[in-house]
């Protein structure tokens, strides 16, 4: 194939994973004598060379602290750091760069909102609404806020198919509701939630909405402006980017009102022994030396996704998810949790294999080079609601192809042969 230029985008506006795979060095790795079949993308995704090289170059040629420096390196670092911020703002729908706060990840972004906006705006008898399918990151901060503020925490329930049940949304999101926090895509069930409907309802009663986009932004076209989300949060490492970097988008008006929760260098405009004033947005919320190399790496990650196009990525994942669901469905001892309609779900597939504990299954699959996750996937209440202690999860991304799914299925058949003899 060398020498022949192949298109990355193929018929039906889909990406071709086999071309993409070449950009990901780790996919050449052998695991236990097999090629790596990486199906743990909901936990973290792999990185293309362009992302790895950008960070390498940062440390080899441009490393300096940002903002406060007047020398060439400091200026280069600052320019790159801020240009990634502008790219992020563009990527999620063309918001203002000053509405983009760098954090360590989704978890920190949510905690920031719960602590700053939450403590200032949620009091006794107020209500916080989340859903039964939240990741611990979008559950525990609200649970703790509710306890501290003596507020109510209400859950939007899920139904048997793994969709949110919005029948009672008008009573759940009532006039006492101050904030609604909801994931756009479940990291266990794959469900894509109708966040627009929830936002509509919340805004009617004057509540603000935080959308957990950790599993959505990497996989779907997202426009926070047309969604009219008040806060939107995600992690770089789940979308080809580096570890240690995340994003909090917030509407300017809300961010302006909010008090910072971390104090130190860069977030101040004037400090005296007995007083301190805050810097403008977004710096007000970015105390201390940030993860500069991370911003260098995240830029090319966004470029890569933009080049492919989020529509084309989504189309690929719909096709592959549909294929995987079909193949898994053929195995009678496999039970799939979550929606079966690939148009209403992403490529996160949780399942269980009869008589095999998810840990054992993960170990067997690993012996074939297949990386899946086993456990409660940081959504223990949901997992328990499904009647399980843990499940196995395979999650897809742009470099996964049908071969990967076939390998998974072969692995399950082998595991079943090995363990099924009860």
């Amino acid at each position: 194939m060398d020498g022949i230029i192949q298109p990355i985008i193929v018929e039906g506006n889909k990406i071709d994973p086999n071309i993409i795979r070449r950009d990901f060095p780790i996919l050449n790795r052998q695991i236990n004598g097999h090629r790596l079949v990486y199906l743990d993308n909901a936990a973290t995704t792999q990185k293309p060379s362009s992302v790895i090289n950008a960070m390498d170059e940062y440390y080899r040629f441009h490393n300096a602290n940002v903002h406060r420096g007047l020398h060439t390196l400091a200026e280069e670092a600052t320019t790159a750091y801020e240009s990634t911020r502008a790219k992020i703002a563009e990527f999620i729908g063309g918001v203002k760069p000053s509405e983009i706060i760098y954090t360590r990840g989704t978890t920190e972004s949510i905690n920031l909102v719960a602590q700053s906006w939450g403590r200032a705006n949620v009091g006794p008898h107020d209500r916080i609404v989340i859903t039964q399918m939240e990741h611990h990151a979008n559950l525990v901060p609200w649970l703790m806020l509710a306890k501290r503020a003596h507020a109510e925490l209400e859950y939007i329930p899920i139904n048997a198919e793994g969709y949110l049940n919005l029948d009672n949304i008008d009573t759940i999101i009532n006039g006492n509701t101050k904030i609604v926090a909801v994931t756009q895509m479940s990291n266990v069930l794959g469900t894509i939630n109708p966040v627009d409907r929830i936002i509509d309802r919340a805004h009617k009663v004057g509540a603000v909405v935080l959308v957990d986009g950790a599993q959505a932004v990497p996989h779907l076209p997202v426009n926070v402006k047309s969604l009219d989300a008040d806060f939107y949060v995600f992690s770089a490492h789940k979308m080809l980017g580096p570890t240690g970097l995340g994003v909090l988008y917030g509407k300017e008006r809300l961010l302006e009102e909010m008090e910072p929760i971390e104090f130190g260098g860069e977030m101040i405009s004037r400090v005296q022994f007995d007083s301190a004033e805050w810097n403008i947005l977004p710096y007000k919320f970015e105390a201390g030396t940030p993860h500069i190399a991370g911003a260098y790496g995240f830029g090319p990650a966004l470029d890569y996704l933009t080049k492919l196009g989020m529509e084309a990525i989504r189309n690929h994942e719909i096709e592959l998810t549909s294929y995987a669901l079909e193949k898994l469905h053929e195995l009678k001892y496999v039970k799939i949790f979550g929606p079966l309609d690939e148009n209403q779900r992403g490529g996160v597939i949780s399942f269980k294999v009869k008589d095999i504990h998810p840990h054992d299954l993960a170990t067997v699959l690993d012996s074939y080079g297949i990386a899946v996750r086993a456990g409660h996937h940081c959504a223990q209440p949901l997992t328990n609601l499904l009647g399980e202690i843990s499940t196995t999860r395979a999650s897809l991304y742009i470099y996964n192809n049908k071969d990967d799914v076939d390998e998974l299925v072969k692995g399950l058949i082998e595991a079943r042969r090995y363990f099924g003899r009860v």
Partner: protein
Amino acid sequence: MSEPLDELYREIIMDHYHSPRGAKKLDNPDISNEGKNPSCGDEIEVALKVGDKTIDDVSVACKGCAISVASGSMLAEAIKGKSLEEVKKIASTVREMLKGNQVELSEEMGDLEVLRSVNKFPVRVKCALLSWTTLIDCLESLENEKKTKTSTTE
């Protein structure tokens, strides 16, 4: 099936997994303790009936993976009827072995040797360890209780 896997899931392990010993919960245990692995949600309960310095009966209730179930079952088999002193020694020896430290098992602990292969699967070590650390907690509670008793009756 690949070889290292066969080493982990030996026949003896699978046998314990499919018919675990000591699985029936004791009615009135003298001591019992819960253990859990937070990252996977697995939980275990070890309960002991303690006679005159011996473990008269033991139950290990575990809804876990093959490794944790088998390890618990082998634990039940290995300590039943043994003196407290012996059990303490067995437990700490197995713990060291599972942690990858160089230890020799005595002849009568022979069966437990198969657990050593877990070392090749570092992420599974904690599955195998769970019942043993829970047992060690039981033994420590027992001892503290006794110490308290001693000090109060004197």
